[in-house]
């Protein structure tokens, strides 16, 4: 479970990240770093230190990959948590505007439901 009290929070999809490191350089709070791990494409994906994000969104607009970066503003005000079967743990959740009844996991951005539809 993410326990950070930071104002913002950033989730990086390691498989979509191409390791260009532009976000690492652009982050004004310097809370992003280039991971030592490889993803399946052989890139070192960017990673979040886990504390200190302000939710400014600069990394989101710097990143050229449409789905690699997700930024939560007002992270500290998001209090609802739930068990995500996909991520295997308890994470903060939110309701989308389009379907208010659906709970979405902040870690994988997928709806939390009993039957998980695998990604093709």
């Amino acid at each position, binding site marked *: 479970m993410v326990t950070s009290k930071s104002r913002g929070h950033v989730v990086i999809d390691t498989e979509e990240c191409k390791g*260009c490191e532009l976000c690492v350089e652009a982050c004004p709070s310097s809370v992003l770093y280039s991971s030592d791990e490889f993803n399946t494409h052989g890139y070192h994906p960017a990673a979040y230190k886990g504390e200190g994000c302000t939710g400014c969104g*600069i990394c989101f607009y710097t990143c*050229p990959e*449409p789905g*690699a970066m997700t930024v939560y503003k007002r992270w500290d005000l998001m209090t609802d948590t739930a068990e995500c079967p996909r991520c295997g743990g308890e994470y903060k959740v939110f309701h989308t505007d389009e379907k208010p009844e659906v709970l979405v996991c902040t870690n994988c951005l997928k709806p939390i439901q009993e039957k998980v539809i695998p990604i*093709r």
Partner: protein
Amino acid sequence: MNTILKKSDSFYDVYERRPGADKLTTTYCPGCGHGVLHKLIAEALDDFGVREKTIFISPVGCSVFAYYYFHTGNVQVAHGRAPAVATGIKRAHPHSVVISYQGDGDLAAIGTAEIMHAANRGEGITVFFVNNAIYGMTGGQMAPTTLIGQKTMTSPRGRTVNNEGFPICMSEIIATLKAPVFVERVMIGDTKSTMHARQTVRKALKLQIEKNAFTFIEVLAACPSNMKMTPSRSRQWVKEVLADYFPLGVKKDVSGEFERKDLSRMVVKNSELHDALNIETAKVDSEKIAPYREKIINEEIKIAGFGGQGVLSLGTVLSEMSMRHNYEVSWLPSYGPEMRGGTANCSVKISKKKIGSPLVANPTILIAMNRPSLDKFEHDVISGGLIIYDDSLIDRKPTRDDVDVIAIPATKIADELGNTKAANMIIVGALIEYKNLMSQEVVLESLGDVLKRKNLVELNQKAILRGAEFIKNLKK
């Protein structure tokens, strides 16, 4: 204010169109400028709620596969032609939001004419012009926007003014035209400039949505792979070097005084068209065509011969007469550059239903007026079709045994009538009689309206009767 910045709904969740196993990432290199601009556009489409009515024109270049990513309407067009296609789409669908997305090789080289004229007409489209000073997809060749002294694959010693001229400043050129409403050059360099580009993208799209205005946004972007720099260093280069030659800023903005452009289509009534072309509406006795009203007809006719044999006019007479019987008709000629001689053919479709395409690949009826035509088209005829050929000029019989064949010495009969050029009308008479396509009476009556040379009407009427007579004798 969005509290969550995530992948826009204007992108597909999974890029199903992308071949291969990886359907989550784009085809762009790490640090590419396209991805950021894609994001800005997609976010604006989401926020304005126009995704469902957006049509995105993918160019040729690295962004050729933009249709993999954008969950909008998509068209991918030939190199440089995006503004021309966008023009057509916007005019056909005035309610839609049309985005023409092009690179510098696409827009400033091969597509210069298209963008100039689309801009000059002030089409209600938004053009995004991504300028990275190089041909990216093909491996870093010199583009019209390559800077002086810049080394590329095709300018290994650096671009020189004497040899290749100056880099083209498209925004400044477009801004000199009267019709464009908003022209600005932005860059994806540092955070500040990217956020400014975001505002500009939104403004341009808003101007199209609200006022159907032509807007042109040039985006200076980095191509780390071809510049052989790290992503970070290449953005620095865009900021310091590229933006130095191509000054950023608004080049033209008349959005304040620009009034919404009315794109409603001009619809011309049939009667107006007839008046303009000075043609009288054909008057046909409805009793005479009554037997043909319920007839199911779907003929695809190929008529071929030498130029000058009246091949095309055979087709026009058939088409005109069919129209008088309320059939749907198409007529498509095909001929060489010679006025006389050479070969000519035309395709005629006659149907009770609306016709989608005028092309005839496999005719139900082939009319061959010379040997080469028979040789060329004989095997295209559908099984159970009909071949009519002029056996006074063609010295062989068709080899097909699964089609009906009529040999008619049309040229010889026409010669007996006094003019070999009437051979085509003999075939018209024969075809109408054989297939019972239409009323002979109506055809004979209307021939005067259809033929240009009125002194030949009588001869042609005789020819049609002789053709019909020939078939009657054949049937006996």
